[in-house]
């Protein structure tokens, strides 16, 4: 059996005149925590639905857990982007129903549901109707429904949308926990910094095509901005002229907030430049700039992101 949990070869899907996914090749290794990124309408949900065999690709090969997802539904946990609950059903009944459909035996479900609800910070809501819960609480119940059967592959489509920071952090921890237990996790998001905090692997798509597929560390190295940002207490021009003379510095500029950006040459020791900056006078702060996924994406597609998280000026350095 392949070590890839998900294996897509040249998969394509068109809706009417819109090519939602174009010849997509995608391999998700077993045990990885993979972020599936892209702006709204990039084709993430369509790809995920094809992975789940909810819709069929027009062409291409698609293997999930070594076969068709339809044959392994009980081994896959799926949180769709378009998700809801049976409003009139009680929380425990709803989870029991989904659990039974996922092949969990009825006897073990009661304990499992109580424990799981406690774990996600919703103790004692078993008897409440789903419609009585807040939107955020419903989101957590939906997440629980996706993993109630302890699947080996978990696919989460925009899991953080609609969650407040506290619950987003809780979900973040839960996903990490599931990953630590050895489960393979693929989650999509259009908010790139969330993936940056969690994933060990990143796949980016845009307009139905893959634009990036690599380990996070490799991406960071590849897109390292090689820039040191220092904020002097005194005149930024003094620090700027000091660093301009250093042989490691390729170029330098001062931003509107008085911070000095020193771009370094290839294969040099950044620590020496930082030491020189500190020796030059008192500083409010000094840091080595890291490329955000927003910037990487912006660079790859050569256009501004819809959520506007990236600064085009910074991206120009990438």
């Amino acid at each position: 059996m392949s070590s890839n949990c998900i294996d897509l070869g040249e998969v394509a899907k068109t809706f009417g005149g819109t090519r939602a996914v174009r010849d997509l090749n995608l391999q998700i290794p077993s045990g990885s925590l993979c972020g599936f990124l892209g702006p709204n309408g990039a084709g993430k949900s369509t790809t995920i639905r094809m992975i789940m065999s909810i819709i069929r690709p027009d062409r291409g090969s698609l293997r999930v857990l070594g076969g068709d997802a339809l044959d392994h539904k009980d081994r896959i946990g799926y949180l769709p982007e378009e998700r809801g609950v049976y409003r009139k059903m009680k929380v425990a009944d709803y989870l029991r129903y989904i659990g039974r459909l996922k092949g969990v035996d009825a006897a073990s479900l009661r304990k499992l549901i109580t424990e799981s609800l406690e774990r996600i910070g919703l103790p004692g809501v078993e008897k409440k109707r789903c419609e009585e819960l807040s939107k955020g609480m419903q989101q957590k119940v939906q997440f629980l429904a996706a993993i109630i059967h302890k699947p080996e592959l978990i696919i989460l489509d925009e899991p953080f949308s609609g969650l407040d920071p506290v619950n987003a952090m809780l979900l973040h921890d839960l996903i990490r926990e599931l990953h630590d237990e050895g489960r393979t996790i693929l989650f999509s998001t259009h908010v790139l910094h969330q993936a940056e905090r969690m994933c060990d692997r990143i796949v980016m798509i845009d307009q139905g095509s893959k634009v990036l597929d690599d380990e996070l560390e490799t991406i960071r190295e590849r897109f390292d901005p090689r820039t040191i940002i220092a904020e002097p207490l005194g005149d930024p021009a003094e620090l700027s002229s000091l660093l301009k003379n250093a042989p490691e510095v390729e170029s330098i500029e001062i931003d509107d907030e008085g911070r000095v950006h020193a771009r370094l040459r290839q294969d040099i020791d950044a620590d020496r430049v930082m030491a020189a900056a500190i020796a030059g006078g008192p500083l409010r702060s000094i840091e080595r700039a890291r490329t955000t996924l927003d910037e990487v994406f912006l660079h790859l597609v050569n256009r501004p992101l819809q959520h506007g998280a990236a600064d085009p000026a910074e991206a120009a350095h990438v």
Partner: protein
Amino acid sequence: MSDRNLAKIGVIAWREFRHTALTKAFLFGAVILPIGMMGMLLVLPLLFASQFKPLIGEVAVVDSTGSFAGAFDALVVERRDRDRSGDAEEVIRRLGIDDRGGMLSGGIAAAAEDAAVGEVTATDFKPNSDDLVERLKKEARDGRWIAVAVIPEELLDEADATEEQKAPMIDLFLPKETSPRHGDEISDLIRSTTVRVRFSAAGDDFERVQTMLDRPTVDVRRLGSEAGKESGDSKLRMLIPFGFMMLLWIATFTAGNFLLTSTIEEKSNKVIEVVLSAVGPLQLLWGKILGLALVSLVILITYGGLAIAGIAALALTELLSITVLLWAVVFFLIAYFTVAALMAAIGSAVNELSEAQTFMAPVMVVLIVPMLLWMPISENPNGTLAVVASMLPPILPFAMVMRIGAATDPVPVWQLLLSTGIGIGSVVGLVWAASRIFRVGILMQGKPPSPLELIRWIRQA
């Protein structure tokens, strides 16, 4: 299909049944309400009857012969005797109900007794003074009389009751508080008494003439195909096929409607994709269809049970046989799956109930046809129209249950088998088409498809 997949269909079916039938709204609306209404239908006439006050009092009659009051009193006594049991028995006999024990007529008569003519008497007054009528009218206003009737002499005179008997009229004065019903009763008593007095004046015996004029009762027996298989004729026979058809209609369309709304709800709640991550669309479709089949069965048993209990209470069980009931169940299943397939397809194709109306209209137009066929099929259950209708999907189950309910002679077995075969074939085709629409439509959002798009879905899926 593996045991595991079948078990999942069972889980879906149970949820559909539980969340539809085991709810307070359903138990109240579909079970308790009809039973209550049936009870009301039985109890209300008795309640109404008990509300009627008997007609009691004296009627002042102004007539020159002086023989009116005696005839009036005799008529009242006769009417009271007849009302106690005779009317009820006559009504029941006309309906063709076998009430040999007299239980039913006794009950109706007992309830009607209070409403019957009570202690009413008449007092004659000779028109000997000009102000007699005015005086009697004043006394009536004061409550002394319940009515004042002025009978023109020529109305009671046998000799004049030939050519111009219609010319003069009886004047009847009633106090303003007299109920319309009591007014009618007094008027009727006075008119009937007038006829009797005429007979007496002519020297004829009214009783004898009335007996001679009485049209005899006819006991109609329908001859069966075999000797000794005669059945009673009953006006209720016409109601049996209608009852069968309505039962099928209510049971299948109520459950079908639940199927439609539950499918639309799953789409609009966006829970559908969660469910489809656990089961295939066909499993979901079958789970829903089977779960709501149970709901339909509960409705059928509730209403059908009430109807059968009613028929048994009226000792009309000869109108139904086990064979008829078994065939009714076969055609119920065909009807249910026909309606369910249509509703599931419509429910999956639309996003809101209001959008479903567009597709429901043509379905309803076709399925309303059996209602229009009630009279012709009841009149001639083995006629060409009936036979053709019972072979034509999707109306065939409704038409066939009317035929088997109406037939004095059984529907030929080959026709039953052929209709069943066509029915099953059409159900298989419909469920197949519905499953293909369901598979595509269930995840569709936005504008509902046109009928042409639906056909494309069936071909593409």
